[in-house]
């Protein structure tokens, strides 16, 4: 019979092999599911996993979808490393879009290269300030940041609804609750940088910030303090790390990143603020952060793979008449296997003879 046995050291090899194992297991089991539904499993798996990376149009859309996920996940991962659980990135994403969008709408009609950067600063501030609410409540009253940040998502959603029906509503929009289209107005539109790959200015900022996060965690004293707080809060306290500072920094960084992602989504792919502007990037990014093992490079890969299955899933729906629910089951399967196989990092399978 088989038995699990704890490894003396977590296995480095397994750390990198398990994601690949998870993808393969998903392909096999997902393929069986598709076969049972009367759909050619090779077609389906090709469309879900390979087509998004080979076709030039799909590739350009891949980064449009992956960029906000990676940017938010990058911010969240820093907090998660320190044991600061910001679950409300979706709210900070919305607040960033509202703050940055409001600046762009207030300057409607003006021109200048400085407008978009100003909007980005406003968005980062908006997101960071929204994240400061759980930070302050945690530091002052030890309120649980998971609950506070999550509840603030719903507050942000309602604020967005108020804004697009009120002050930010398009005066030429026939009363429909939506703002003007910022992506169709030169000074507020996010410029493309490398069109064939769908990398726009937001994607470039994302890559730069990802590199900065890598530097912060690997080389900077603050990164060391963050990691130490996560691994051993008591040791961190003895080493003179102020927990309040760590909480504020972590929530501030993740809020600012989510806010920026909101602005890039607004001035790029979405164009305008509407009631259903948020589509859950803030929540999906939590998955991306953990899939990527809270590591900047891992997050980049995880964001691209997850975005790929979304895009492939849409294509598979109309090309193979695959129901949307089957695609969701498939994505769920991948996460399940990923988390399940994680046990192989700390344990190994031994055959025991009785």
């Amino acid at each position, binding site marked *: 019979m088989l038995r699990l046995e704890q490894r003396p050291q977590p296995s480095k090899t397994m750390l990198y092999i398990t994601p*690949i194992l998870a*993808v*393969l297991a998903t*392909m096999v089991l997902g393929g069986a599911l598709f076969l049972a539904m009367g759909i*050619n499993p*090779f*077609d389906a*798996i*090709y*469309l879900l*996993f*390979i087509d998004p990376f080979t076709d030039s*149009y*799909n590739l350009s*859309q891949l980064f*449009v*979808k992956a960029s906000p996920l990676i940017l938010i996940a990058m911010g969240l991962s820093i907090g998660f490393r320190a044991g600061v659980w910001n679950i409300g990135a979706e709210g900070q994403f919305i607040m960033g879009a509202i703050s940055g969008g409001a600046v762009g709408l207030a300057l409607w009609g003006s021109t200048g290269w400085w407008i978009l950067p100003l909007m980005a600063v406003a968005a980062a501030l908006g997101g960071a300030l929204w994240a400061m609410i759980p930070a302050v409540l945690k530091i002052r009253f030890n309120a649980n940041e998971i609950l506070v940040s999550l509840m603030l998502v719903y507050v942000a*959603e309602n604020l967005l*609804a*108020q804004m697009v*029906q*009120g002050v930010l509503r398009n005066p030429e929009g*026939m*009363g*429909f*609750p939506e703002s003007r*289209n910022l992506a169709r107005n030169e000074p507020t539109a996010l410029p493309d940088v490398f069109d064939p790959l769908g990398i726009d200015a937001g994607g470039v900022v994302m890559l730069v910030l990802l590199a900065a996060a890598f530097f912060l965690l690997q080389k900077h004293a603050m990164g060391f303090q963050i990691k130490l707080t996560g691994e051993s809060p008591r040791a961190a306290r003895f080493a003179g790390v102020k927990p309040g500072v760590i909480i504020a920094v972590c929530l501030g960084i993740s809020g600012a990143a989510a806010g920026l992602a909101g602005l890039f*989504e607004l001035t*790029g*792919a*979405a*164009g*305008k603020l*509407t*009631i*259903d*502007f948020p*589509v859950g990037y803030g929540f999906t990014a939590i998955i991306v952060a953990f899939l990527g093992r809270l590591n900047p490079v891992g997050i980049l890969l995880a964001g691209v793979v997850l975005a790929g299955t979304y*895009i492939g899933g*849409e*294509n598979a*729906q*109309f*090309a193979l*008449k695959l*129901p*949307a*629910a089957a695609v969701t089951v498939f994505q769920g399967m991948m996460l399940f296997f990923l988390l399940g196989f994680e046990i192989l990092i700390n344990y190994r399978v031994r055959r025991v003879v009785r």
Partner: protein
Amino acid sequence: MKFTKTLAAAAAMGFALTGVANADSHGETVQAGFIYVGPVGDLGWSYQHDQGRQAVEAEFGDMVETSFVESVPEGADAERVMSQMARSGVDIIFTTSFGYMDPTIAAAESFPDVRFEHATGYKRVENVSTYSARFYEGRYVIGEIAGAMTKSNKIGYIASFPIPEVVRGINAAYLAAKSVNPDVEFKVVWVYTWFDPGKEADAANALIEQGVDVIMQHTDSPAAMTIAEEKGIYAFGQATDMSNFGPTAQLTAIIDDWNPYYIERVKAVMDGTWESTDTWHGIADGMVAFAPMSDAMPADVAARAEATIAAIAAGEFHPFTGPLNKQDGSVWLAEGEVADDGTLAGMNFYVEGVDGELPN
């Protein structure tokens, strides 16, 4: 790594072999794509559009091929789905929710040879048509029924988003209810979603706690109907016949019948006569239809409903006929004046007598 590459190659080969059959499916057949905001199993709005898609298949058989993508969010994702559908070689795409308006226009600019049909919007270009139904005619009919059937004189209304389409429905239903029952009162709950059975059920429960005994809805799931059945009050089916969920609760239902329109538009593509149009059909053209009147309705109530349906269909009666004031008391329509389509299309005010403020 080598192993995954081999697998990728194997998968690619599998696709190549079967892909041939897919690739030559063009030629004489017309391909029609549909994009839905909810799941086809919502048993409401998206379900009814999918009935239209199936009607197209049934009508044209082998001459047409249809495909759809369900649960497409109304934001940035919509344009990608439309573009990918257009790239796959479809001839006409029906985008069936208001929020797809700008994405539809943008996709239409990128794919000038593909024809687009956008439901409930107001922006058109050379290859984008718009179409909608005069649901307010249906709302007027069920408003009359609700006004007659309520005992508590409180009617609940589950509203989605404060857009003209929804506001128009509330106004029409209120005017109708008031015309048969001067004491009637409307309680409107805004849920800010088209499809969320959980929220819709919560809204229904909240309304019932406030003493409501008839519920109307402008959301897509049968959740409220289920609650109405449980609590022994009345409700109306939305978009489709929901009597399965409320065999005693459903008084009637407004049915969105897209079938004739979809068949007509696909036919136009086949004949090469398609051009950009704006269609707003009502009871007269059959786009707005009704489920059978429930036996719970007294004969005079049902007869009045049938008479109203006939009068609207014949063009003898318009739900928005003056004298009518806006909620703030200002005059909207003078005696005998009928609302023009432009004002109706952009309606962002309540009529006099509706309680509460439009979210603003």
